[in-house]
């Protein structure tokens, strides 16, 4: 059991509407993990993040950071890039970054040094004296990213980090995120674009209408939603596959097939049946569902996972 950097216990947040935006949410975010907070727009992700970043307080429940109750002083340990990004348009890049870091609690000198090294690192020293409004959108995003990470937070929260990014900046940010993760930073991604983070995340939580539908490691989440669907890759006549008892063909191409078997099918028995076929099978594996499919299944109220 890895140590949890952040623990949310039974968090509830209600705005003026009758339905709570966050409804009894409990989550554990392991130290050093890349954690995906996933759900459609309006699921309560941003409300949740605002409580973690101390922008708002929960109506009930508690947030623990390394086992201790979260206090406003902890914001220095957190770097947050909101979905709605912005900077002071008329401020110069360097001044602006130093200002934002000082607000995180860094001394001026320290903030200046950090900003300098980050500007060097992303190779944008030349912009230091430029006003934000003179920069292109892509440049502004880099500055925004520096503002989020330059104080070396232990926890990085990125809300829809790739929205509005061009491919080059997406790659750059992805690389930086991996580098930070390698250094031990805990990272929370919040997005409704599940396919974007699937490869990045260690652990995920699926959220809908203020409630947690599922929290698990990515691998386990996918495995626990496995139905008895198998994918086949083969050479020969695919029609042979129809001979497997109980099989229901979902998809069939000249070289591949997706076949569902009834619940309770003995996989060893299945393997024996397959070996009897007059077909050269080059791959045979359990089909792992995509996060998107899991989510849709959960929202539709399909059979709960084991």
């Amino acid at each position: 059991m890895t140590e949890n950097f952040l623990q949310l216990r039974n968090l509830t947040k209600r705005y003026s509407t009758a339905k709570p935006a966050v409804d009894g949410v409990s989550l554990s975010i392991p130290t050093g993990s890349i954690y995906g907070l996933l759900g459609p727009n309006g699921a309560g992700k941003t409300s949740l993040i605002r409580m973690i970043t101390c922008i708002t307080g929960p109506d009930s429940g508690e947030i623990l950071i390394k086992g201790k109750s979260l206090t406003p002083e902890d914001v220095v340990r957190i770097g947050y890039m909101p979905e709605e990004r912005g900077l002071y348009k008329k401020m110069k890049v360097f001044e602006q970054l130093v200002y934002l870091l000082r607000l995180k609690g860094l001394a001026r000198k320290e903030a200046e040094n950090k900003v300098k090294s980050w500007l060097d690192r992303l190779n944008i020293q030349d912009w230091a004296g430029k006003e934000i409004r003179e920069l292109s959108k892509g440049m502004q995003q880099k500055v925004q990213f520096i503002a989020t990470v330059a104080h070396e937070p232990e926890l990085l929260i990125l809300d829809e980090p790739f929205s509005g990014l061009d491919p080059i900046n997406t790659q750059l940010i992805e690389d930086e995120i991996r580098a930070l993760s390698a250094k031990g930073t805990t990272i929370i991604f919040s997005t409704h674009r599940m396919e974007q983070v699937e490869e990045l995340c260690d652990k995920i939580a699926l959220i809908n209408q203020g409630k947690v539908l599922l929290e698990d490691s990515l691998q386990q989440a996918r495995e626990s939603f496995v139905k008895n669907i198998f994918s086949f890759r083969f050479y020969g006549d695919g029609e042979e596959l129809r001979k497997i008892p109980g099989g229901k063909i979902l998809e069939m191409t000249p070289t591949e097939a997706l076949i569902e078997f009834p619940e309770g099918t003995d996989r060893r028995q299945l393997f024996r049946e397959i070996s009897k076929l007059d077909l050269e099978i080059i791959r045979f594996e359990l089909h792992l569902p995509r996060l998107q499919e899991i989510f849709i299944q959960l929202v539709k109220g399909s059979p709960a996972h084991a």
Partner: protein
Amino acid sequence: MHKVWTIIEREYLTRVKSKAFILSTLLMPVLLGALVLIPILSATHVGEQKLTVYVLDQTEGIGEELKSGDGITFLPALYDEQIQKDSLKPGEALLIIPKIFENLSGRNTAPLAANEKLSLGLKRSLTDRLKEGTRRFRMKRLGISREDFELLNVGAEIDETTVGAEEQLSAEVASMVGYVMSMLIYFMLVFYGMFVMRGVIEEKANRIVEVMASSVKPFQLMMGKVIGIGAAGLTQFIAWILLFLGISTAVSLIFGGGGASVSGADMAQARDQVEMIQQALQAFNLKMILLFLFYFLGGYLLYGSLFAAVGSAVDQETDAQQFTWPVVMPLIIPMLVLANIIQNPNGPLSVFMSHFPLFSSNVMMIRYTATDVPAWELAVSMLLLIGGFLGATWVAARVYRVGILMYGKKPSFAELFKWIFRS
């Protein structure tokens, strides 16, 4: 706490370094100075325009009593009225003194035809010379000597003192000082309040506010902005006072001593004006300045945070109007009854308004200059103002912390109330 300082520092420096701030700081005293200087200059520099006046004298001798000077030369008319009029060249005029001027009473009118429009100063000087000439004519007729006339020219003034009062200001000067201070506070509150509002809207529109909110508490953000901009206002204020003092000292050095070289009633009037301003400036003792700063700051903190709350509730400046009027109204109301308060500084309206926190920052300074406000009344008014701004800040902070993170729909007043009273 040090985060609030960081915010104050940024808000202050961005304002103070802006071109608009520097320009308005420098231009305002120049404008005020011009208001004082222009009448004086127009009175002294009459001589710059030369005028030859042909006098068609229909009386028996007034024309001879007219004295040339200040660029005005009187000459007897050479021809009859029509020909003289037709032959006027630029810088020439024809003055007709009708027979009626011989009457020893009444106010008479003399027609003047000029080739071009006369300046105000020239016309005044000409009028004074005609009056003086007529006076000398009448003195001769009545047999009054110059000495006798001087005896008749009675000079008397009233020097008013309020028993037991520290201030010894004439009512005129007092009301002027009070009026100017009240107007200044009013303008500064509206001006800098709007600055605060615009700043908040800008942060919302730039979407930086959520980044900020993840580092500092909304209350810190709001107070940092209000105080930073207030400090910029105070800086401008002090700069104005210093510049104005400098200018008026210069004015009094130039015109106060050297005034003897210029004669005429206008100059006397201008000197009076300068004297009155000097008297008013002397009236600024330390206590008054401290009171003024207190009421300015108290009022500013009260209204500044309310303006911040208004800014937080909307996405763009054009949407703000609906919410600004409830904030601006209580600022305007005292301005509407200002004259009333100056005339009747101890009436029930004045007493009420100088205690009610929404009005007191504008009204108390007028009352203080116009009458003796008992110390306990001052104390109550100041305490109420402190309470008022604490209350306003509380209300504003509650609207602000919800408002800054709300985008899209413009809230209704009912929703604003909900924000205030929700836990």
